[in-house]
Every structure is written in structure tokens, then in C-alpha cells.
């Protein structure tokens, strides 16, 4: 399960609107406890795929290093990532799984239809490595004033 504050959830969705028609991307920092990836901070990142930003994203390794250090300084971990699918469903693609290497992390995808954030889904990357990795649907718990369950 992915647990996230409503404000962070809205921020990552808004990021997809801001970068439309290009894909946005960012990193989810928090803690992973008992099968729950709890997001405590989101960090928007730049998409280096300027050659095909409408259907590809890539976060520069040097930016990842900076974000990972930022997380370490706050005793947080990288627990997931997010990106958008402009004018396409919020489902993982063959490119998404081929390029996913962070086992046990959450991959959040928001469909952005004509510039407006639509559906947001989360997928957990499971497995032991490249040979058996797979995505599975993951519920999203959105925290507001009181915990509520909100899923796909």
C-alpha cells in the first residue's frame, strides 16, 4: 500500500498538469514499514528526455544522488517515484517495466487528459531482480484530516 498526504497527492498530480504535454517525474521520500510505503515528502525532478518528453521520462542520476542525500539527511528513504502519462491511461507501459529497477518501491502514474490530471494509480515493483520483476496494482491511502481510503 502507498500512504500519502492529500497535499502531496495533489502536488504530484498538479506537476503533471504543469508539464503537459510532457511527462513529469519525481521522487517519493518516506519510510517503508510492514508493506506500507508511506510518503512524507515529494521531490519534483526534471525530465531529461527532452528528445521525447511527451512519452518518456528520465531523472538524471546526479539529481537522484542529490535527492538520496537529502533523504538520508532527514532519515528518510526513497520509497517510490511518480510520473505522468499525457493523454494516455494511468497504467504502466512496457517501457515503464523495462526501466523499473527499484524493487519494493511504488511507481505512481497519473493520466493527464488534455492538460487536466485524471486518474492516479500506484504500482508496486516486486521480485528479486531483473529476471522476475513485475508490477502489481497497489492501493493508495490518502491522508486528510482523518485517514480515509481512496483507491483507483
Amino acid at each position, binding site marked *: 500500500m502507498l500512504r500519502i498526504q492529500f497535499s502531496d497527492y495533489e502536488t504530484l498530480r498538479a506537476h503533471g498538469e504543469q508539464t503537459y504535454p510532457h*511527462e513529469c*517525474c519525481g*521522487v517519493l521520500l518516506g519510510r*517503508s514499514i510492514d508493506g506500507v510505503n508511506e510518503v512524507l515528502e515529494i521531490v519534483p525532478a526534471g525530465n531529461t*528526455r527532452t528528445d*521525447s518528453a511527451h*512519452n*518518456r*521520462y*528520465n*531523472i538524471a*542520476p*546526479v539529481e*537522484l*544522488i542529490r535527492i*538520496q542525500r537529502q533523504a*538520508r539527511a532527514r532519515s528518510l*528513504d*526513497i*520509497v517510490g*517515484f511518480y*510520473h505522468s*502519462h*499525457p493523454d*494516455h*491511461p494511468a*497504467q*504502466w*507501459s*512496457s*517501457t*515503464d*517495466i*523495462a*526501466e*523499473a*529497477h*527499484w*524493487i*519494493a*518501491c511504488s*511507481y505512481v502514474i497519473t493520466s493527464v487528459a488534455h492538460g487536466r490530471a485524471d486518474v492516479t494509480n500506484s504500482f508496486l515493483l516486486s521480485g528479486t*531482480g*531483473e529476471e522476475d*520483476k*513485475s508490477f502489481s496494482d497497489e492501493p493508495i491511502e490518502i491522508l486528510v484530516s482523518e485517514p480515509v481510503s481512496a483507491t483507483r
Partner: protein
Amino acid sequence: MTIHIPTPLRAYTSGKESVPVSADTVAASLEALVTEYPALRGNLFAADGKLRSFVNVYLNEDDIRYLPAKEASPVTASDELTIIPSIAGGCCAATASRALVRTAPAC
């Protein structure tokens, strides 16, 4: 020197975020790491012994691929090595040839 381990690989380092090693080069440091934690080897290195293409390794602030001596670059006790798998993806793949991804929905 210290090697920082990314979240997905800590399952193979007993949960450790950082591992101290004693070595003279980047390559020797990584070898010391996988010697101590053998299950890491397949996640870091391909069958030919080279780092997997999606595994980025930074010596302090520098990507080792762009250092003059690359993996043979010398290291000191105060250096930090950071392992960071790549983050990429996107909608609408042009090709989907891997068996692993055959079930991916078209989008």
C-alpha cells in the same frame, strides 16, 4: 571508504544503508562489497562481469563512467561511493520485445 546502498538493494545488505570497505580502487571497493554480500553480485553485475547498464556508480560527485580511469579510479578512506539505479520510463513504448513485458497493456 563508505558505499551507500539504495533502497532496493538493502535487502541484500542486511538492511544497511551504508557499508564500509577497505580498497584502493572503485572496482576493488565494489568487489569487496559483493564479497561481503554475495547476493548483491547479480543485481550489480551482468554475466560478463560488467556493471549492469542501469546501475550508476558515483565516486563522491562524479559518475565513474566519466572518470579518466573509470572503475580503476583510486579511492581513499574518506571517499564515498554511491550506487543508484536509473529512474526512467514512459508511456507508449515503440517496441516491446522482452518476454517480461508481454503483458503490458497498450496505451
